């Protein structure tokens, strides 16, 4: 940890709330452009020395994410149900945010993702809308993100992807057995598998090490600094300018505004639960699709009685998340899938929504293994296997090294009923209302997952699996806690129908930008990080131009 030190009473140029995938990018862009930046992060500042392969710490206790024992979350399926305490959503909670512990899939959105409403038509019971921007608006920023962060992949290998101005900066990662089996089967079926684009270094890059294939990506922090989190890529660049202070353990409770309706800074609790007011000339809210909405709702004032930036009433609404279905296959020979990165092959043949199917939706499929020894024993075995005893033990020995999965990352429709709101009863230890999640599938979400499951099974069977099984789609048993939180401050041209404008600036507040998954109008196919970061580069670009005039 290095960088600048600012006094809370001195108004910095930009206050960034959330040091994650987007906040890290914004901080770097603004600090290198000459601005003074403070970044408030509710979690700790950890580095690779703090990480380990400890499954008890990082999967059982989900050590790099929000802890519901400390920060309660309540959940209900719909408004008529009482909300109960359950970890319904999960997000990265440290400097680097979710980019530290994510699987590191790095998919660009397709051109069609930005215009699904026009291309597909309206969907009953959903707020499907076009984005106010197009793929071409974001393309230069996708490229910038790929080069600044360090992404490995093979340009042109995915025939469904939009045009690219540059290839990936790094070649793809070596294929695993799951990738080979998936590749062979998909080609046999006439599909188009390609090497997974990932935020993991296949070769040394910008002073960082190449991946050593330890296998502990998802849920873990990378000890080699080979995963291209903002923690190891752009945040050090921001700090090196001497104009950026990362302030960890700083839990923001309110964004303050003045009589003109402009933001003036934010009040946060420091690690000793003392309240501090950091003054700023502008605020960039990058606190993820759940906490961003919650903080805006917490930031009520006389001028903003429904919460900040919420004249549309849409802050917190249209929550979307990482729907998906899982199929597994058991093979004759050892795959040893616990080695190396989680996914090495992907296909997007089923990505686009097609009205001919009779429902909205689509998905990207990847060949993967995202279990660790204990989590595999608990959740990775076929449902008809015994759960204990000599036979179970024997099967575990035969399955752990011989199993792979095919995961469908599928669409999540924006429903106005699905939301983040403030729990009226449950409070956190700081006295703030708990995050309340209201979520239920749209029928088309379920139809899409069921349809994709048939494709996943087809691929595993074509790959020669001796046994194939699928997991269910129940929200409580399989989906939650959900990640990839999107939609709760949607982007649009009409201030009555959206929260931020096409440059991520709040319609209601001239010096407030909201840049994270919350601005998403549609969910893509559940790999939002590349798009979040491209949007962050773009928003920073416009914020700098706006401030400089």
């Amino acid at each position, binding site marked *: 940890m290095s960088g600048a030190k600012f006094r809370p009473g001195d108004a910095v140029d930009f206050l960034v709330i959330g040091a994650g995938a987007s906040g890290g990018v914004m901080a770097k862009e603004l600090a290198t452009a000459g601005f003074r930046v403070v970044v408030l992060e509710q979690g700790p500042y950890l580095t690779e020395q703090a990480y*380990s*392969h*400890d*499954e*008890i*710490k990082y999967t*059982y*206790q989900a050590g790099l994410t929000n802890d519901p*024992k400390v920060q309660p979350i309540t959940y209900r399926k719909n408004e008529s149900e009482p909300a109960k305490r359950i970890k319904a959503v999960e997000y990265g909670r440290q400097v680097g945010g979710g980019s530290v512990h994510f699987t590191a899939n790095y998919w660009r959105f397709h051109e069609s993702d930005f215009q699904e409403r026009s291309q597909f038509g309206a969907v009953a019971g959903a707020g499907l809308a076009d984005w106010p921007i197009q793929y071409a608006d974001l393309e230069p920023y996708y490229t910038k993100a790929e080069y600044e962060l360090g992404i490995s992949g093979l340009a042109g290998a995915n025939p469904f992807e939009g045009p690219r101005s540059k290839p990936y900066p790094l070649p793809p990662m*070596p*294929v*695993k*057995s799951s*990738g*080979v*089996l998936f590749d062979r089967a998909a080609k046999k079926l006439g599909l188009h598998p390609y090497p997974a684009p990932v935020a993991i270094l296949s070769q040394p890059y910008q002073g960082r090490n190449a991946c*050593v*294939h*330890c*296998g502990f990506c998802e849920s873990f922090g990378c*000890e080699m600094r080979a995963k291209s989190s903002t923690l190891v890529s752009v945040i050090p660049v921001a700090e090196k300018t001497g104009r950026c202070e990362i302030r960890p353990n700083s839990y923001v409770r309110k964004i303050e505004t003045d009589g003109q309706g402009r933001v003036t800074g934010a009040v946060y609790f420091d690690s000793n639960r003392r309240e501090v007011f950091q003054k700023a000339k502008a605020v960039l809210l990058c606190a993820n699709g759940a906490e961003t909405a919650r903080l805006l709702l917490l930031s009520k004032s006389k001028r903003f009685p429904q919460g900040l930036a919420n004249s549309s009433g849409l802050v917190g609404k249209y929550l979307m998340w990482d729907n998906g279905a899982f199929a597994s296959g058991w*093979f004759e*020979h*050892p*795959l*040893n*899938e*616990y*080695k*190396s990165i989680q996914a090495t092959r992907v296909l997007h043949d089923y990505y686009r929504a097609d009205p001919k199917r009779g429902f909205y939706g689509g998905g990207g499929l990847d060949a993967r293994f995202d279990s660790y*020894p*204990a989590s*595999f*024993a*608990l959740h990775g075995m076929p449902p008809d296997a015994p*759960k*204990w*005893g*000599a036979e*179970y*033990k*024997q099967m*575990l*020995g035969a399955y*752990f*090294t011989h199993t792979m999965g095919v995961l469908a990352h599928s669409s999540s429709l924006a429903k106005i009923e699905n939301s983040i709101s403030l729990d009226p009863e449950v409070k956190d230890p700081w006295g703030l209302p708990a995050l309340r999640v209201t979520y239920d599938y749209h029928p088309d979400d379920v139809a899409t997952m069921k349809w994709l499951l048939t494709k996943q099974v087809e691929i595993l069977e074509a790959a020669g699996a001796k046994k194939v099984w699928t997991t269910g789609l129940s929200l409580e048993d399989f989906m939650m806690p959900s990640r990839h939180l999107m939609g709760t401050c949607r982007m649009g041209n009409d201030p009555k129908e959206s929260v931020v404008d096409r440059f991520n600036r709040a319609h209601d507040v001239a010096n407030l930008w909201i840049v994270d998954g919350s601005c998403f109008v549609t969910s893509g196919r559940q790999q939002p990080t590349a798009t979040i970061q491209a949007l962050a580069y773009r928003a920073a670009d416009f914020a700098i131009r706006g401030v400089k005039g």
Partner: protein
Amino acid sequence: MAVEIDAIAAQIIPSTDGPGAREAGVIYFIDRALATFDSDLREAYRVGMAQIEQKRQAMFPTSASVAALSNEQQIGLMRAIESSEFFELLRTHTLYGFLGNPSYGGNRNRVGWEMIGFEDRMAFEPPFGYYDAQEGGK
């Protein structure tokens, strides 16, 4: 209570064909979990184990403890409790104790990892498995 929990853990991962939960020291892991990061689950253990003892007395009235039951009797008791919420907790703790990081007191001598074929190493090189080896590690 430890002896009773140990008997159940040893049925979840028995010591047939190599070390099981007992040899891995699962009970030490559970002790540690309930003293530290899972201390909020102590009450669930107290209540859950009391229910198991009741079940045992109902099924085997002359028995003194779970640990004292014969192997067949223990398996019968397991079948009677296997769909309960508390059994799922015992199973979760047993598997983390058998396959988790040895620094928590379980997975002694890495017997769990050895059983499933997991190699605890910081780095690997391709090819990783049989099928990518066929492709020459491309």
